[in-house]
């Protein structure tokens, strides 16, 4: 057995797009592979090992019966990296939490619903300690390589904590608010190099909120363009419905007088209808 760090990949409920992003890195990946031993990666290889130093965990937890497997991984790993927004935030299917589990099961399995298990969608950090989160749906491939390099060198990794607007403006992209879109860039964590706005779409908030979202600034931008914060919160449901910070932001937004949106009904945070 070589003394290179042993790396393992695991996945829970997700689309596996983040693992796939790792697989598609190509040459830089081959380069990094020389410095580690990948000992478990079900999607890519048949070997399995219970001994590893770094565990990359993709996917969120949706069933209590998956928790023991997650905890076993934590016990064995020196470092746990949450790979992507499913693991770090809950992922796009957190918005299933808007509905009762029984309703979801019945829609999917009809009168056999009782035979199946489901539960609240949560990030892995709800169950275990996470050393480094890599945000993004999917992750940004270069950030993955950067994180891995930091871990291998034993250096702390600073998770980007500026808003997407920062990267967007740095690149000189046209602000999509001017096209009448509601962009989540003002409060969303950057690190994706504003890939969505680079192509003229809006930010959907896939990397979650920055640590201290500048609620006032966000509100100003929104008010300037005649949107209510309710609307932006509704959009945040796609990626971090239960994240405490979204909740805080929702409360902060609720304080000053509420502004009605133009047009259709605004999304209410936590609404089930």
């Amino acid at each position: 057995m070589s003394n290179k760090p042993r790396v393992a990949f695991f996945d829970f409920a997700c689309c596996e797009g983040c693992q796939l992003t790792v697989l598609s890195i190509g040459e830089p990946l081959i380069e990094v592979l020389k410095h580690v031993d990948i000992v478990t990666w079900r999607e890519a290889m048949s070997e399995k090992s219970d001994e590893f130093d770094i565990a990359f965990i993709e996917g969120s937890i949706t069933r209590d019966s998956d928790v023991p497997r997650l905890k076993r991984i934590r016990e064995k790993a020196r470092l746990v990296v949450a790979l992507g927004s499913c693991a770090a935030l809950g992922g796009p299917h957190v918005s299933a939490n808007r509905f009762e589990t029984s309703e979801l099961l019945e829609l999917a399995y009809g009168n056999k619903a009782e035979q199946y298990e489901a539960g609240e969608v949560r990030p892995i950090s709800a169950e275990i300690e996470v050393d480094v989160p890599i945000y993004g749906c999917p992750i940004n491939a270069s950030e993955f390589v950067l994180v891995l390099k930091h871990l291998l060198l034993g250096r702390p990794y600073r998770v980007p904590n500026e808003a997407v607007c920062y990267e967007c403006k740095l690149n000189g992209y046209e602000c999509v608010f001017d096209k009448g879109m509601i962009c989540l860039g003002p409060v969303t964590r950057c690190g994706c190099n504003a890939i969505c706005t680079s192509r003229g779409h809006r930010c959907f908030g896939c990397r979650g909120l920055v640590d201290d979202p500048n609620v006032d600034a966000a509100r100003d931008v929104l008010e300037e363009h005649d949107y209510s914060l309710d609307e932006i919160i509704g959009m945040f449901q796609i990626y971090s419905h239960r994240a405490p910070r979204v909740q805080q932001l929702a409360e902060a937004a609720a304080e000053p007088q509420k502004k009605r949106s133009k047009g259709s009904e605004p999304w209410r945070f936590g609404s089930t209808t």
Partner: protein
Amino acid sequence: MEIRVDHVTRVEGHGNVLASIKNGEVQKAIFEVVEANRFFEAFMRERSHEEVAHIASRICGICALSHNSASVQATEKALGIEVSEQTALMRRLIMDAEMVSSHALHVYFLVAPDLLGLKSVVPLVETDPDTVNLAFRVKTTAYDLAEVLVGRHTHPVAVVPGGYTSMPDATALAQMRERFVGLREDMRTTVELLKQLELPAFERETEYVSLQQPDHYSFYAGDIVSTDGGQVAADDYLDAFSEFLVDHSTAKHCRWNRDSYMVGALARVNNNWKQLHPEAQKVMEELGFKPPVCSTFMNNIAQFVETVHSIEDAIALMDQLLARGLKEEDIPPVTKHGRGVGVVEAPRGLLIHDYTYDERARLVEANCIIPTNQNYANLDRDLEAFAKQIADQPKDDVELKLEMLVRAYDPCISCSVH
């Protein structure tokens, strides 16, 4: 002999193979799906038409472009959004990028190790770097095409119902064209490699289902056809086949004319091979693929044949787009609301998104039929027949071969319990 393979490797998602063989008789052989359901159909409800495709592509990381394409197609039909000729060409080109990237991943990275007696592609990094580089090159080139077209393969950013938030850069697209031309040589090299590999011998006659268009080999839209006879318009898929639950799976199974059918590359090549690009037909012949082929293991050859086809088709489509000149177009308006059915051929087979929208263009109902679900019943039948055929072999061999059979389907398990 009791066979139990938990969490079959080199497939997407979690599934187990269970088989019990007594005195050469197979008493049970099933593929058990244990993946957690994510309930996309339920939670996409209430989302605005502009958000649905963004969410829907997250059903699957490998076939994100297919879900995204089926989703916008369904939304466009439901809301009466007419797309331009340029958009129609882009949609076909995107599906070619999808085929090449997904098939390359499967053939080179997930299946080839089995045929070389390896447990993964990793040892090849040292022993056969040229082939590994070739594999990465094919896959990355397709990925890069998706990036140029729509911002990213997993998950696309520029696609919206009705068109694109921005069009690709013409220079970048012209460069992609040249890189695709460069792949021709890699295809020739791969043909020679594949000729040396031996696939397990196994045949079982079954029903093959795919899309069909009158004038081209279709990955995007068309009628649904079966080798058992029968042709339905996409909107009427419910008249043809149905989904049902089985006890050993968190994913649904499907049937049409008989108790199981198969979708995917093998089904498409069997049904539509005459429409393949001549170069792909040539490769088909060289590799001994004579339709109709009833061996599931040949699905991997069919995937490669389609890779060759899609590379040629993509070059032709890029030429067409570049000759017309890429134009930024306005997104056409919503003109009605109601139900719309979007159909594409994902790499793993027929994929259906069936949506209903209300008057505010919010989704009220969604039904997504995934290729892998359609294959599960057929996989179980195959496992049973194949287990019987190899029942006298040592347990380790039986285990590996049944696993290989599962991989031949290229199942997308997390996708199937969406």
